[in-house]
């Protein structure tokens, strides 16, 4: 029995470790597999063909994850560039969208139309299509609308131009003008009323549409001010609205009105010689008005270049020309009767002449002061100063300053003005000096320097005599006079003067 037991124990002793080894070996193999299954290596490139993720080990999974990350990294590396692009284009679009009305302005379009009707003089008969509901899903939606108005050609032109000069775009899609009732010339029936149908369109900008959630960019405001980004923004040409400035056309007839005149027994045939004479009058006046315009332009140039002497001369010439032309115009107005010559005369001569004549003083130039204007003041101030009437001298100089305050002084008058001001200053100094009490009661001559008794106090050269103001000091002692230094002026005063 013990032999059997021994054998059994031996068998168990051998079997158990074997089983344990097998078991742990299997576990080790399993874990190894979990780590390395289908790992793609140089020795095992075929593992790449296994695409079932469930069969992959950890290392294979890691390999696949790294591959995906590498593919996405290229996209991620573009973030900085794309942020810059987004910043630039956000600002560019915000800038450019200023030409499009926003919803608030579209809401006020009815008021705008009303205002334009008032300014132009047309009569509004119909408005269709104004709507808050935009057509289209994007950020920029179109809103067409149509109007029907009645009025003369010029009134409609003004009305149309008002839309085309708005800061926010309103485009004209089309229109139809039907010539209306004819206004007979000279019969004063009032302006014609053509029927006009007008198709317009505008656009509504909704910044929030089309972008679910804008990407948040850190330090956006600071980055926006970066010089590189600002340069990129400026490189994008700004959207602009072209506009047309309507110029007033004097005497231009309405093109939709029949310009023919009724036949009348009073119509006089103008002889060719008479027409030629009238044409000659017109041509001469045309030359005169062109010369006058050239003179006015020259005047502006002189003013810009500050050539005031020339300004004075030219102003005089222009005034004389205007005066002469007024007489000529009265005569021409009576003599020019041929229709087309008269119309040209009104447009090309009368209108510009009226404009020049009615010009604001600033167009001719500001008041200027020349030698002629300064001379009386200077003479007066000099005279008063020489007569030692310093108060009158100062007063006259002050009058000059007050008068010259809003005027331009011509270059060659500056010297006279400077002399006048110097005299005025001297006079003021003398007035102030004479107000200082200086009673001289004695003088002591000494080799080391004279002493003078002024106002009961001894003073030597260099001492102030008007303490505490200290504007006047004793500068010298002569036999019969004292020399004072007052505000930089040297004033000699006789000693025996009381």
């Amino acid at each position: 029995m013990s032999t059997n037991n021994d054998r059994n124990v031996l068998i168990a002793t051998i079997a158990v470790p074997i089983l344990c080894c097998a078991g742990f070996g299997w576990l080790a193999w399993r874990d190894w597999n979990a780590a390395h299954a289908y790992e793609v290596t140089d020795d095992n490139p075929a593992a790449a063909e296994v695409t079932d993720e469930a069969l992959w080990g950890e290392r294979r999974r890691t390999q696949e994850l790294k591959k995906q990350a590498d593919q996405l990294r290229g996209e991620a590396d573009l973030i900085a560039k794309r942020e810059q692009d987004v910043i630039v284009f956000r600002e560019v679009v915000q800038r450019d969208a200023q030409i499009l009305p926003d919803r608030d302005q579209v809401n006020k379009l009815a008021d705008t139309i009303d205002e334009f009707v008032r300014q132009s003089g047309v009569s509004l008969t119909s408005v269709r299509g104004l709507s808050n509901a935009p057509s289209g899903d994007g950020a920029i939606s179109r809103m067409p609308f149509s109007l029907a108005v009645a009025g003369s050609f010029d009134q409609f032109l003004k009305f149309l131009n008002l839309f085309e000069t708005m800061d926010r775009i309103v485009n004209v899609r089309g229109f139809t003008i039907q010539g209306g009732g004819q206004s007979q010339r000279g019969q004063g029936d009032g302006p014609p009323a053509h029927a006009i149908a007008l198709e317009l369109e505008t656009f509504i900008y909704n910044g929030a549409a089309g972008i679910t959630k804008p990407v948040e960019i850190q330090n956006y405001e600071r980055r926006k001010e970066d010089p590189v980004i600002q340069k990129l923004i400026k490189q994008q040409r700004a959207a602009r609205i072209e506009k047309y400035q309507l110029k007033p056309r004097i005497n231009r007839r309405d093109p939709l009105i029949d310009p023919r005149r009724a036949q009348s027994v009073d119509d006089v045939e103008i002889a060719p010689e008479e027409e030629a004479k009238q044409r000659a009058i017109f041509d001469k006046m045309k030359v005169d008005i062109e010369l006058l315009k050239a003179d006015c332009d020259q005047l502006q140039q002189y003013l810009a270049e500050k050539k005031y002497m020339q300004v004075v001369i030219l102003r005089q010439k222009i005034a004389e020309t205007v005066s002469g032309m007024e007489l000529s115009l009265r005569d021409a107005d009576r003599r020019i009767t041929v229709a087309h010559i008269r119309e040209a005369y009104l447009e090309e001569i009368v209108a510009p002449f009226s404009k020049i004549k009615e010009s604001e003083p600033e167009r001719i130039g500001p008041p200027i002061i020349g030698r002629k204007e300064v001379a009386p003041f200077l003479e007066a101030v000099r005279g008063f100063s020489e007569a030692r009437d310093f108060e009158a001298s100062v007063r006259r100089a002050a009058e000059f300053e007050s008068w010259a305050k809003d005027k331009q002084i011509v270059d060659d008058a500056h010297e006279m003005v400077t002399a006048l001001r110097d005299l005025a200053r001297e006079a003021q100094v003398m007035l102030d000096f004479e107000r200082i009490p200086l009673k001289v009661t004695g003088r002591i001559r000494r080799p080391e320097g004279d002493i003078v008794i002024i106002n009961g106090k001894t003073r030597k050269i260099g001492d102030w005599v008007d303490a505490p103001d200290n504007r006047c000091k004793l500068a010298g002692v002569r036999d019969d006079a004292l020399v004072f230094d007052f505000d930089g002026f040297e004033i000699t005063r006789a000693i025996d003067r009381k």
Partner: protein
Amino acid sequence: MIKVNLLPPEHRKVEGPPVARLVALVAGAALTAGAIGCWAYVRMRVLSEARAEREAAEEELAQVKAMADRSAALLNEFKEYEKRRTRIESIGQQRILWSRKLDELADVIYNKGDTKQYLVWVNTIRVAGGRAGESPASLTFSGLSGGDSYAKLSEFHRTIKETKEFYEDFLAIDPPVGGKQTFSDNKSPSVGWDFSFNMDHKKPNWREKQ
């Protein structure tokens, strides 16, 4: 032979296990320990490292993916803004200033008051879509040229073409065809020629493309 050992236990000779069993035991223990060690190494070191690497790779992928998504969102936003800008630009460029064209047309018709060259007035003026494919709009005006002479209508037509600032924005103008009419309204002139001209407008930004 039966063996009896009368020695007290403390004096008896100790008998150890059999050598075979001992060797088997030691070897078995060594092998088992080795197997356990091997497994522990694979589990604790190899597999753990592999898992840690995998987790790190997942984290990195998540970060990169988030950045890639942000980059894609930026690109989408940029494209949207670019589209808007292009649209705004085209809206501005498609604009035709009809007040200017009407003003210029009125000047041509008025001709500075010179009625000797021609005396023209219009009945209708219309702006609508262009006839030619490249033309965004067309201007049509019809009216009358006063006077017996067809040459005056022709002169009017010629003046339109020679007025550069007005005509250069159009592709062409219809030829001066029309019929003679007599008026019975006691006005002078009592005859005239009717006409209807159509002019297709060029694309508004044609100057920039030159």
